[in-house]
């Protein structure tokens, strides 16, 4: 096998591992983002699929999803349920202000060689032991960094971190839930994400480790692909100040994803850090 072919295979293997990095898109779809009244509830679909927002592939995993109340303290996820194609849950917006709902995941993936045999770190784990496997056999758990033996060669490790967060507002919008942690790729909106209007430009800043993320690529894709021919996505880049400007062509729900890599790793022997940020934004008519 040529080195190039091997590298392509490794790349393909890496891509097939975590859903957040594959062609499949993870998404959270709230029933609305702007609420009035004193007893508002939002219900959210969580799923993984190619086309937005169609339920045809895999459900999202509820155990990774957290709720932040407008004051930044943890909130409660209610009525969670996982079906074949989607998970669904409710959040009771019992305090006024902007709530954050979503998940943050991180891990390490890659490969190494022992005695000329390549093994993978992270991902879905290996097939069950034995050729073909017995019916009902359990897959082997994925290898971790700690499983890499001392005599391993060709160690290639990539750190991954991803966030998938949505914002919903009861009453007046607030900004406390946008406070950055200073770790990884984060979203620091200039325009409030619950104040988006078709035809008006919105500005969102992206941060890496708390500093403006200049020149990173961001995809913005409208929902409802089944009812048109083109995907209709926008491929945008943040400016030198880390700010992305998006002008919304029409009202609707949009999926936004920013992905970037750098070499500022914290795991020993990892050479690359891959970061992604995903959100779903609702744009209203003027």
């Amino acid at each position: 096998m040529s080195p190039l072919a091997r590298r392509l295979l490794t790349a393909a293997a890496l891509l097939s591992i975590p859903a957040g990095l594959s062609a499949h898109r993870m998404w959270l779809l709230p029933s609305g983002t702007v609420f009035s009244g004193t007893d508002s509830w939002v219900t959210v679909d969580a799923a993984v699929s190619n086309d937005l927002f169609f339920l045809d592939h895999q459900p999202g995993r509820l155990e990774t999803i957290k709720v932040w109340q407008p004051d930044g303290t943890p909130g409660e996820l209610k009525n969670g349920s996982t079906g074949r194609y989607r998970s669904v849950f409710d959040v009771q917006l019992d305090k006024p202000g902007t709530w954050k709902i979503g998940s943050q995941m991180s891990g390490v993936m890659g490969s190494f060689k022992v005695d000329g045999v390549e093994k993978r770190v992270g991902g879905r784990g290996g097939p069950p032991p034995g050729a073909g496997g017995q019916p009902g056999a359990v897959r082997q758990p994925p290898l971790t960094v700690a499983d890499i033996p001392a005599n391993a060669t060709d160690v290639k490790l990539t750190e991954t971190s991803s966030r998938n967060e949505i914002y919903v507002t009861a009453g007046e919008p607030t900004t406390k839930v946008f406070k950055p942690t200073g770790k990884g790729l984060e979203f620091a909106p200039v325009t409030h994400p619950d104040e988006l209007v078709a035809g008006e430009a919105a500005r969102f800043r992206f941060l890496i480790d708390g500093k403006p993320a200049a020149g990173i690529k961001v995809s913005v894709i409208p929902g409802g692909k089944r009812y048109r021919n083109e995907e209709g996505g926008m491929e945008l880049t943040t400016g030198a100040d880390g700010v992305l400007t998006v002008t919304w062509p029409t009202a609707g729900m949009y999926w936004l994803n920013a992905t970037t890599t750098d070499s500022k790793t914290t795991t020993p022997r990892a050479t690359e850090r891959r970061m992604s940020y995903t959100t779903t934004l609702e744009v209203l008519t003027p």
Partner: protein
Amino acid sequence: MRNAVLSSSALLAGVIAAPAMAGTVTVTIPRLNVAEYHRPYVAVWVEPAGGGAARTVAVWYDIKKRGNEPGTKWLADLRAWWRKGGRSLNLPANGVSGATRAPGQYSIALPADLKPGAYVLNVEAARETGGRELVTVPLNVPNTSGRATGKGELGAVTLSR
């Protein structure tokens, strides 16, 4: 009843700062021939033409006097008004909020203390199982005059002195 309260307070303001009547807006809620009709939620507000804080003149919604939910659940459907200031208004608001109205013509006094200048008058209507419409009319204080007409949810909106 609400109208009576509104006009008497306008009258009172007129006495204090005569002749500062900023004018009157007449809003028409059209009669619609639909299978399921509910009276629309309507908001009327004034914005400075050069941008600035919106001032709500009237909001008509389904006020509920009992229970935990005072009828404000669907106010965000008046989405332009909600974003421009409805969400920061404490409801019910004296002299501003009131019950939904049946089809017909309604005259609302503009705030008597509106300073002379250029404004935009906005009227937004949203109807359950129906549509939503926003009608805007340029408003000059004190030479109040103007007219615009909605296409579906609102009829004529007329400004007069």
